[in-house]
């Protein structure tokens, strides 16, 4: 769209609003895709993506318990002040490359990486030990890059499929979609469903602090002007994830104690392996996309599902666990493809599949976008910008991995005395930059202490963040539904279908969790721990 067209649209919208009409601002998907790409053609967007890629790479390689939730939590207060596309470039760049570079720790140090890359240790580390570290890394980068592109491509295909459905979505349906999102608590609570629900209820409660837009009632304000607009979600997320992670470093005072395996072999051997196993990459990528889309599976299992699939379908399953390159290719391709699946539910449905996507939704809301059908209708070009960024970041991340393989390995040895002050800087600066109000610092300390205790006593923080993110939206849609339809909105066919889907996904998830709990250490995590010990 040219500036003049944008101006005309805004004028038309203002005029329509004055006349009480609703104007359809849709643009065709082709235009949206083109505009989404053109939006990226700015130096600052490219630089932001590179910064994101650097941060994501460092996070993936640094062993001190850093993860994407922490990066998002730290970056949020800063990037929400930027132009949306620039901020999105940083966030997507970081998360995309973090998955691609997540194989460093498993392959070089035998340490399970972040979630989604834990299975890689089973075959990656034995390969590293027998002098094929570069080959394993090459295979992981290539498989990750291909997986990322397949995930992105699936996301692109999902857009035209989903778009017609948005015409079925009114406020009641959107409320149920949010409710469905909230049923993700069953996943995010992990093995502690009651504690997860308590944390989610606490999050919902926090979401209601401030003056309610619909009624004007001051809720939980306690005569404090600071609380009138509620508490910034980005500050809460920053405190809840940033401070406990920094404290962990300060407590253990550790980097990596082990020496990495020597980086031998050729990266291109791994590339050849991956290209030879292209069909495995495709299959595992779709496993990743499926895990990303289906509510209830959770990112923790993606690598294990793909690894299990690769081992089951292999003609020589005995080689798995002993340094078979397919044991690296399968989890890495699935892990990277999952991001595309995650974005399908996040951008097109409007509910998150985990903490990172929940925080991404927080950022989108701060920029004025409402993820889900509304965004698909009004801002498809932004969705396409995310798609383009996801694809480009995947390619850049793969290249970074190939070019800087040896140098990145050294990052894993950064001392805590550098890391803790760095985190101090970003947490304090991030909190202070939101409103430049010293009270924000008090809030960040308070929620930091709360986050520490929640983690200490196993109250899942992701569940709380989910409640916090969805609470406000749910209340808005519920209000609109009640105001427009009374209780009859419950009898709308789409509402009934969505309610059944939400209930089914919740029940199946809880049943699955309870089953795996009864099976105890025989779960995937237990299997991983045992095999890692053996290695």
């Amino acid at each position, binding site marked *: 769209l040219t500036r003049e067209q944008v101006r005309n649209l805004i004028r038309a919208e203002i005029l329509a609003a004055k006349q009480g009409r609703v104007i359809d601002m849709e643009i065709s998907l082709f235009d949206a895709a083109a505009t989404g790409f053109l939006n990226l053609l700015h130096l600052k967007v490219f630089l932001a993506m590179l910064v994101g890629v650097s941060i994501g790479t460092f996070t993936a390689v640094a062993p001190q318990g850093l993860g994407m939730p922490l990066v998002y939590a730290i970056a949020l207060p800063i990037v929400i002040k930027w132009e949306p596309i620039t901020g999105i470039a940083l966030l997507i760049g970081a998360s995309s490359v973090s998955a691609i570079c997540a194989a460093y720790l498993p392959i070089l140090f035998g340490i399970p990486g972040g979630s989604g890359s834990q299975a890689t240790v089973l075959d990656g580390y034995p390969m590293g030990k027998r002098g094929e570290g570069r080959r394993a890394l090459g295979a992981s980068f290539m498989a990750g890059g291909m997986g990322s592109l397949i995930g992105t491509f699936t996301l692109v295909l999902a857009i035209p499929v989903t778009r017609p459905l948005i015409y079925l979505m009114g406020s009641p349906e959107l409320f149920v979609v949010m409710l469905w999102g909230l049923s993700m608590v069953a996943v995010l609570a992990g093995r502690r469903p009651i504690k997860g629900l308590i944390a989610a209820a*606490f999050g919902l409660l926090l979401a209601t602090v401030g003056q*309610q837009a*619909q009624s004007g009632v001051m809720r939980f304000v306690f005569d404090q002007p600071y609380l009138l607009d509620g508490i910034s979600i980005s500050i809460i997320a920053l405190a809840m994830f940033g401070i406990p992670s920094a404290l962990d470093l300060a*407590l253990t005072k550790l980097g990596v104690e082990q020496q990495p395996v020597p980086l031998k072999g050729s990266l291109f051997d791994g590339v050849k392996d991956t290209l030879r196993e292209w069909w495995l990459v495709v299959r595992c990528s779709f496993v990743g996309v499926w895990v990303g889309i289906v509510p209830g599976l959770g990112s923790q299992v993606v690598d294990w599902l793909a690894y299990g699939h690769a081992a089951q379908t292999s003609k020589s399953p005995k080689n798995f666990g002993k340094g078979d390159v397919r044991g690296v290719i399968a989890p890495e391709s699935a892990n990277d493809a999952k991001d595309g699946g995650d974005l399908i539910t996040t951008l097109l449905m409007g509910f998150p599949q985990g903490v990172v996507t929940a925080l991404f939704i927080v950022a989108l809301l701060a920029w004025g976008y409402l993820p889900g059908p509304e965004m698909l209708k009004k801002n498809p070009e932004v969705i396409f910008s995310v798609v383009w960024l996801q694809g480009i970041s995947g390619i850049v991340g793969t290249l970074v991995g190939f070019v800087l393989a040896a140098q990145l390995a050294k990052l894993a040895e950064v*001392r805590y005395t550098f890391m803790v002050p760095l985190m101090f800087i970003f947490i304090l600066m991030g909190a202070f930059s939101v409103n430049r109000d010293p009270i924000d610092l008090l809030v960040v*300390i308070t929620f930091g202490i709360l986050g520490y205790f929640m983690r200490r006593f196993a109250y899942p923080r992701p569940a709380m963040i989910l409640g916090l993110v969805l609470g406000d939206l749910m209340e808005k849609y519920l209000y609109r539904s009640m105001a427009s339809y009374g209780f009859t909105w419950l009898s709308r066919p789409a509402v009934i279908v969505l309610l059944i889907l939400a209930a089914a996904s919740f029940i199946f998830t809880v049943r699955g969790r309870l089953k795996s*709990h009864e099976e105890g250490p025989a779960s995937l995590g237990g299997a991983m721990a045992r095999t890692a010990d053996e290695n």
Partner: protein
Amino acid sequence: MKINFTFFFLVVFLIAAWAGWGWPNIAKIMPVYVAAIPGFILVSVQLYREATGWEARRGGSAGGIDMDEVYDVQLDKKTELRRTVAFFSWFIGGAIGIWLLGIVIALPLLVFLYALIEGREKWITSVIMAACTYLLIWGLFEYMLESRWPAGLLFS
């Protein structure tokens, strides 16, 4: 100790239900009926489970997959407490420093002191770290992005 933290949620939900009871229905559906009352019931169940050792009998923390990081720091209690208090002291000190001195002065100072005292880095390393912090805060934000940080209470 565990039961004490669960009591925190109990108190929060009770206060929320009490504070919101008099609001009109439209304002209290979410905070009172959806969050506080169910939250209170869930906390009661959790307290019962903790008091009766139900979780421990069911296998407690064995097996399964956690969706949040698990607290697995293995230090003796004294060291853990000392380091935790030290960490929060540094952090709160940094926040007070920002309030009094302004972020441009306080954060480099915090980094310098932390590296020197807590990290036992060399003087020169600490100074370099502080200088890098200053460059980041002043150079990037104030100079390049023209984003002015407010002065501290002592200088305003």
